[in-house]
């Protein structure tokens, strides 16, 4: 059934269709509508789940982890400061191999207080062992929640579904909400190999000596490495059942491109307007939107960018003292490859400053006028 819904509600519908059993959440702008709708669904019986209204994001994640270990499918959502407060438990989730699925609305970190979008909140959690999907439409948000549960529960690794504050969270779009029975056919009930039960008592997460700890982390990495192929497999399966393919990346006119914007989140769709304009002028432009950020889709990115002379990586984030984070990642992926494109790094749109058609035009003008990347960071739209 087609509905006009906001990005936040796409997360709620995704969790509902996935039959999340325990939800624990704490309110933070711009996430609130996600959990407001879920609490209504729990209250009126649309969703058979327990909603734990905790007193902090830290407790939200703690409760999700406890419920997940008990064998329940769990969901939560947060943003920025809330995600930062959860940080300790993000490690707990992946280290404990608990497949929680969480929505994170990208919001800039304080101070100064900001409720507007940028990616430093979720990218600061890069090394916590979570799968991260950056979405660009409400449809993709809803579909990816369902896919994420399937991927997470197969590998016992948690997933984060990331969407831009306001640009997606509060933007209404037409979304095809799939039928419950079809989702049930795609996503079987959660049935973990071990769980917290007196019927089969185990101690989970106890003191682990140097003799054992490293193997646990090795196994986590080995399973992380299986994610890209599983995303492809489950994405194709989703396409067969629902008509929409869910991949690691989203390409736009990349096949013959001589210049590619690498983007993430909603900025990718703006880039495509400029791609079309450039093509009208005879410049073979394209857009590679990276959806799966962790694990990094090395093979996909390499196969696409190795044919291209020039790449402009657009970051709505920064690693202070280093560069834009997607820029680092793309450069790292291309290092040592037989063909290395010239890779430019642009930082723009921090704290919710709009990324517009003009932003991409400026980026294109800069990159097309240079034969080498003279600077590691090119700031766009900053008042210096």
């Amino acid at each position, binding site marked *: 059934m087609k509905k006009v819904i906001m990005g936040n509600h796409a997360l709620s519908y995704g969790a509902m269709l996935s039959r999340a059993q325990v939800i624990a959440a704490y309110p933070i702008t711009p996430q609130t509508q996600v959990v407001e709708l879920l609490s209504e669904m729990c209250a009126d019986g649309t969703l058979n789940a*327990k909603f*734990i209204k905790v007193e902090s994001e830290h407790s939200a994640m703690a409760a999700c982890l406890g419920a997940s270990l008990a064998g329940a499918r769990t969901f939560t959502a947060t943003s920025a400061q809330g995600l930062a407060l959860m940080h300790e438990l993000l490690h707990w989730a992946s280290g404990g191999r608990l497949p929680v699925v969480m929505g994170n609305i990208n919001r800039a970190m304080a101070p100064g207080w900001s409720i507007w979008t940028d990616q430093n909140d979720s990218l600061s959690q890069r090394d916590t062992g979570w799968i991260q999907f950056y979405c660009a439409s409400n449809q993709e948000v809803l579909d990816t929640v369902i896919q994420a549960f399937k991927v997470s529960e197969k590998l016992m690794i948690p997933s984060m579904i990331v969407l831009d504050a306001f640009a997606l969270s509060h933007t209404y779009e037409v979304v095809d909400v799939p039928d419950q029975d079809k989702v049930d056919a795609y996503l079987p009930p959660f049935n973990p190999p071990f769980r917290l039960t007196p019927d089969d008592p185990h101690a989970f997460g106890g003191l*682990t000596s140097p003799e054992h700890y490293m193997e646990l982390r090795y196994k986590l990495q080995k399973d992380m490495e299986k994610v890209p192929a599983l995303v492809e497999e489950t994405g194709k399966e989703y396409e067969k059942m629902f008509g929409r393919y869910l991949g690691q990346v989203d390409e736009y006119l990349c096949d013959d491109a001589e210049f590619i914007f690498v983007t993430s989140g909603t900025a990718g769709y703006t880039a495509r307007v400029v791609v079309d304009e450039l093509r009208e002028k005879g410049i073979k432009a394209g857009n590679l939107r990276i959806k799966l950020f962790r694990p990094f889709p090395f093979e996909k990115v390499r196969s696409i960018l190795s044919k291209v002379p020039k790449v402009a990586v657009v970051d709505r984030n920064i690693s202070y003292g280093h560069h834009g984070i997607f820029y680092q990642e793309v450069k790292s992926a291309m290092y040592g490859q037989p063909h290395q494109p010239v890779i430019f790094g642009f930082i723009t749109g921090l704290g919710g400053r709009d990324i517009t058609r003009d932003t991409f035009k400026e980026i294109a003008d800069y990159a097309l006028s240079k034969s080498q990347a003279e600077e590691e960071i090119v700031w766009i739209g900053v008042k210096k």
Partner: protein
Amino acid sequence: MTKERKMTLTIPKEELMSPGHLACQGCGASLAMRLALKALGQRTVVCIPACCWAVIDGPFPHSSLDIPIYHCAFETAASSASGVKAGLEMVGDTETTVLAWAGDGGTFDIGLQALSGAAERNEDIIYACYDNEAYMNTGIQRSSATPLGAWTTTTPVKHYKKHPKKDIIGIMAAHRIPYVATASVAYPEDMVKKFKKAKEIKGTRFIHIFAPCPAGWKSRPEDTIKLARLAVQTGYFPLYEVEYGEKWTLNLKIKERKPIAEYLKLQGRFRHLKDDEIAMIQKEVDANWERLLKRCEQ
């Protein structure tokens, strides 16, 4: 001719805790767990945050308990237990008792927010705090459960603890949860009774257990029970319970309280105290005792 006297054993014989655990000699916390599990039985799940019990249980892949354990983050005993309870119910297990088992640091300090949240929501869990009055697992640093006058590695003799212990029972009673009680390893029948009572109640139940720590208190391991008993007999740690924040009951009436000095002198952590300082502590114990009696009379 003396009449034959028979005592009835009220403590279950079943052992859910095995020997071979890693507790120190004379550890009150290990005895507390053994007794609590005797009362609660095997259909119990325990959430243990960072505390001595995170180690006592035994390193991976060993465990000294015959019940499932979730080793959770320091400040999450109550929130983890809330999640476990919800999760178990959603997978069809409504019978299992969910126990949060934390030290005083994890309860009085870092876990207090999560505990207050769980109590306000009246989560259907038992929260037990075994109180050894400092961060013992990290090497005897003061917590807000450390008593007035005590030495710890962060309250050195020259600057011993100047503030009284936080009134955790008062805080929990103010949440008006169904059941709040104190218990002591020196009174095992009382402790087992309280855990059994707690098990039959729905909602948040909080049990504060006095658990001496010879390593941290600089006391003799063989004095653990003696110290725990003296704590009750001096009125320093009375045995009482509070139902729904309203009904306060003193479980063990002490006709003549022993002087606090008898309790303090057996512990190296109080060795530096002079007579006037001991008198100050006695005054505080007296005031707390009178306040408790008044509450229990109402």
